[in-house]
């Protein structure tokens, strides 16, 4: 029976409208609500469903970052993961560094299937899963909308521009989740209580002896150009008139 490893990231909650700091060094993060990255929630949900369907025997969830990431891991345990590992680090971790840390976890845990969210909604990089696959020389199926596992293979339907394609991958393999893979369950209070008793191990980042130095330096962060204020039009005729004569786009 399969062991599944899922990577999760603690990010600014998707409902928060972030503000750029006035000194343009970054985005205002103090006192902002943090949550599990929505695509990672989908990843955990998928792993738990595979376990509930009898295709997997253990779901291990891992996160890399500050101590508060434990909250995110506890949420994953409440969804149904069995065991959690925090790779504790205080410095900024960019996708290549995270991929290297996860690669050392994969070497340690030897999972059959590794599931990640396709992108984190803070940096929107969409790289970590693919980088991890390349480092481990494993096949990947990104933007997955359906996963079935049987006979040592994962059959994955994935979203591509203009439609979908289906791949069959030998295990172990990497899958990254897209929005329509599943709808994560609501975490119930009994499961939150049960999660407190599940094992959560902390590893210090430096003990993994991985080069995590950032490779991209942020020079500045600014607000996007603002759109000018618009006008209300009273009816379809007025709208067409504006589009033809004012905006000159029709």
């Amino acid at each position, binding site marked *: 029976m399969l062991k599944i490893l899922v990577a999760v990231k603690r990010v600014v909650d998707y409902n928060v409208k972030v503000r750029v700091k006035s000194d343009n060094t970054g985005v205002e993060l103090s006192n902002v609500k943090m949550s599990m990255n929505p695509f990672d929630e989908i990843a955990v949900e998928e792993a738990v469903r595979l376990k509930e369907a009898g295709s997997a025997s253990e779901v291990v969830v891992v996160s890399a970052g500050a101590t508060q990431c434990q909250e995110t891991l506890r949420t994953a345990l409440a969804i149904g993961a069995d065991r959690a590992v925090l790779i504790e680090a205080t410095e900024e971790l960019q996708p*290549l560094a995270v991929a290297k840390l996860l690669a050392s976890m994969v070497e340690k845990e030897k999972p059959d299937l590794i599931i990640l969210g396709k992108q984190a909604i803070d940096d929107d990089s969409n790289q970590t899963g693919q980088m991890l696959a390349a480092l481990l020389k494993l096949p990947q199926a990104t933007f997955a909308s359906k996963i079935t596992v049987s006979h040592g293979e994962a059959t994955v339907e994935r979203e591509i521009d*203009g439609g979908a394609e289906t*791949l069959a991958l030998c295990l172990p393999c990497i899958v990254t989740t897209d929005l329509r893979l599943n709808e994560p369950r609501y975490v119930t209070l009994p499961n939150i209580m049960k999660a407190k008793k599940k094992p959560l191990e902390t590893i210090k980042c430096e003990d993994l002896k991985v080069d995590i130095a950032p490779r991209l330096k942020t020079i500045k962060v600014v607000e996007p150009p603002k759109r000018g204020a618009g006008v*209300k039009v009273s009816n379809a005729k007025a709208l067409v008139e504006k589009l033809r004569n004012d905006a000159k786009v029709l």
Partner: protein
Amino acid sequence: MNILVIAEHDNEFVKPSTLHAVTAAAIVATFTHQEVHVLVAGNQCRAAADVACRIAGVTKVLYADAPQLKDGLAENVESTIVGISEQYNYVLVSATAYGKNIAPRVAARLDVAQISDAIAVSGPDTFDRPIYAGNAIATVQSLDSKKIITVRTTGFDAASASGGNATIVEVGAGPGTDSLRFIDRQVAKLERPELTDAKIVVSGGRGLGSGENYARVLEPLASKLGAAMGASRAAVDAGYVPNDYQVGQTGKIVAPQVYFAVGISGAIQHLAGMKDSKVIVAINKDPEAPIFSVADYGLEADLFDAVPQLVDEL
């Protein structure tokens, strides 16, 4: 060393997305004075390579022709790119599903960072990119000797598809892998323009109520305007249209001349996909809908009345 653009193609033609990546490469070249080369990796793809030769600003087209490259599997395209990467310190590809699938593998193999969704180039190693669903723009500087970049097509004009006269060179394909198999692909044949390329986009949201309504109300408008059709996440989740119609932070990013948002409330994640459109028109009966804050023209009306009236007026 030079700049390499990875072409997206179907073995016959080069896709328009590639032209935007070539423009980004040309801007890098204004800082580095290097040549722009294009790689066409496929199977029986000489025709696509010939098309690539005519792209303005391209000096050389490399083409790798092998059975393992037929279906664009990321693992095999990656090994082909890595095999020729010694002569390139920039590798660019459009930030489409194709490019996003392949580029990070190349970056990891070369042990360098990737810059995703570049929207501007301000130096040989400095790029702008959107973060937090485009609510902030970060200027980042790469500290690596090789830069792997995915290019947001809406950030750069398309290079001209003609006027170029590149030399063409066959290169070896990287080894194929047995660890996965391509099974099949379903891509809809569109009679309308492609969403990411269209000058006009008609997009529908949950306000339409059903797939039948989406088609009945919006298709006449899209046909009248020669527009592409898109949708909000809510409309896709409700099953009105297929997944690839979704415009948004994690769907398609579009920047047409005109974007009609019909029955779309305007969640942050939807705005991320369309707020760079030249003109935004919102039709919604809810005066408080956030979409009105980005719309140039807002029509507060019932879309079931307003859209047919709009079709009549056009």
